[in-house]
């Protein structure tokens, strides 16, 4: 074979498969635990639907403001700095959001500023909105800087890049901000994010959790970014 010979598509995919398959992975967790989590998901979903009459009115009000008021889709450029976050409009149409873990964001302010950069969002405090099924595309819309950046060396900030052009029609970004009141993390803060269908979502005052077998998750702990392990 000389340098001009090329691998077939199947050969390339096989090589990628071989390499990815060589990564060690954990075996499946206990199916009973998975099913218990599934039952909890279902219960939360039903609970959220039951509470929608109140949460939905509040969320619908926020949506109406976003569509008709100063939070409309007109996009501005530049940088917005607050004590809690910095939002930068990038030339490629994306926006970079850096959260300061020592200062919790004000939901209305963040939602307003995201809207200025063309990012429809539902930012809530004490509740969190999700859609079932979740709209596809979260990984296309939200991303971190690529490998090799210095982002990973700091615990002081969290930076994400949001691409509003990648958001499917009719979707919004849901930001939920919680003050945890129970469990071993009581007194700490938690922020969650998801993509939702703006015409079909439920909001719950229960912070999302991944269950007791979750190895850890980030929280805003007493002014310091931290992770439970």
């Amino acid at each position: 074979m000389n340098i001009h010979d090329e691998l077939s598509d199947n050969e390339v995919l096989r090589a990628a498969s071989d390499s990815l398959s060589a990564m060690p992975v954990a075996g499946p967790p206990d199916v009973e635990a998975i099913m218990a989590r599934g039952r909890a998901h279902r219960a939360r979903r039903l609970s959220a639907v039951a509470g929608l009459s109140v949460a939905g009115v509040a969320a619908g009000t926020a949506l109406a403001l976003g569509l008709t008021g100063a939070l409309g889709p007109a996009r501005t450029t530049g940088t917005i700095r607050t004590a809690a976050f910095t939002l930068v409009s990038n030339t490629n149409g994306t926006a970079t959001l850096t959260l300061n873990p020592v200062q919790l964001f004000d939901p209305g302010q963040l939602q307003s500023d995201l809207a200025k950069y063309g990012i429809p969002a539902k930012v809530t405090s004490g509740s969190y909105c999700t859609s079932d099924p979740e709209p596809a595309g979260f990984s296309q819309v939200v991303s971190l800087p690529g490998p090799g950046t210095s982002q990973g060396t700091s615990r002081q900030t969290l930076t994400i890049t949001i691409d509003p052009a990648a958001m499917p029609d009719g979707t919004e970004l849901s930001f939920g901000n919680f003050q945890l009141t129970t469990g071993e993390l009581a007194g700490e803060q938690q922020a969650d994010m998801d993509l939702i269908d703006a015409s079909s979502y439920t909001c719950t005052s229960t912070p999302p959790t991944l269950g007791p077998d979750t190895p850890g998750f980030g929280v805003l702990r007493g002014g310091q970014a931290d992770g439970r392990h």
Partner: protein
Amino acid sequence: MSNEQTEFADFFQASWEPCLRAVMAVAGSRQQAEDQVADAFAKAWGSWRKLQRHPAPRAWVVRTALNTGASWWRRRRRELPLTDHDLAAPGDLDGGLDAALMTAIWLLPARQREVIALRIFLDLDNATIASQLGIEAGTVRMHLSRGVAALRRELTPTKSLEDGQ
């Protein structure tokens, strides 16, 4: 166990590894992927009666895992102080892992990685991948073609050198 539970358990046992590998290929982080896939299977059990009739239930699990923003957010928070993506972390590059190829895979745009992962690990055709991702089959072909071309550029010199020796 009821019949329904047994059916789900069988599906779970048989599908865990391919779904996990597909999500790892896209998400980059092993721990994040394990967490997201476990959560997706939990949701699968919560919707099992509906999912049983789904044409590609494994693809549903993978898409659900990749759409789980909450866990993504939180896992990233914990992983940030370490490395951005432990897919390419040196500690993982043992056995049959090809560091350069793994890096090349990670550097692909997310959608290309997703299409390739669904093809490799779930053995889905273009039409099924398209329906799962909500895009056109032609777009799947385009992503697959571009992704494979990028990986080929990484692989071809290596193979040529090996063959020349």
